């Protein structure tokens, strides 16, 4: 059960890839955000991982329509703490960043929208109020 408080959407790398591939589920996400006026946040760690695939076509556009979330000291502390607590290595760094960004916002707690919820679910369980929704 949720608190009914305002929320936004935080994307992971897989959700970005779904957008780039013009998948129907990504269109549904965009329409849901526009319909309900939900802000979408893109953690810069996820953007960096997305660039690993040498995808530059819509990079500029992404900068202008998402709130970009940097690694603040609070997010860094949350990332490190979560990985340590679950005994995960740095392979899970970006997933941990995505969840920590959703949890550490000053004004709301976001839903994490992902195409692969397996590891993110475990990480999100450490942060009360962070919910994961599979795209």
């Amino acid at each position, binding site marked *: 059960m949720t608190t009914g408080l305002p929320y936004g959407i935080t994307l992971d790398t897989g959700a970005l890839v779904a957008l780039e591939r013009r998948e129907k589920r990504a269109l*549904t996400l965009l329409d849901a955000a526009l319909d309900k006026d939900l802000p979408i946040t893109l953690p810069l760690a996820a953007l960096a991982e997305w660039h690993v695939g040498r995808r530059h076509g819509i990079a500029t556009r992404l900068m202008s329509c998402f709130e970009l979330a940097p690694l603040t000291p609070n997010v860094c502390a949350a990332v490190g703490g979560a990985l340590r607590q679950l005994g995960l290595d740095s392979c899970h760094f970006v997933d941990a960043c995505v969840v920590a960004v959703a949890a550490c916002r000053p004004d709301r707690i976001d839903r994490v929208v992902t195409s692969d919820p397996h590891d993110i679910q475990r990480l999100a369980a450490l942060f009360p109020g962070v919910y994961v929704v599979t795209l």
Partner: protein
Amino acid sequence: MAKPRRRGLRSEGTAPQKVNKSVRISVAAAEFVQSLEHEGGFSGFVEAAAQEAMRKQRLREGLLELREELFGTEPIDRRAVDALVARLDAGDDRS
């Protein structure tokens, strides 16, 4: 023999609470005014709110442009959107 007037006693008992409450409100109001002055006064407060509204509007326009660039004029699948919004509202995952 006349009974002591109880009204005065009652008000003595309740007065401190009233004073405390009004003091709290005054302090909160003073802090609010102080914060406004710190951020450039009331006009600064209004300006910050206007900038935030403009930022959100720019993001929304960016999102609309992204939709058009990636999906053209693809119509909204209302049923799919409503289902996703319901899952987002519930914080519920289908997995």
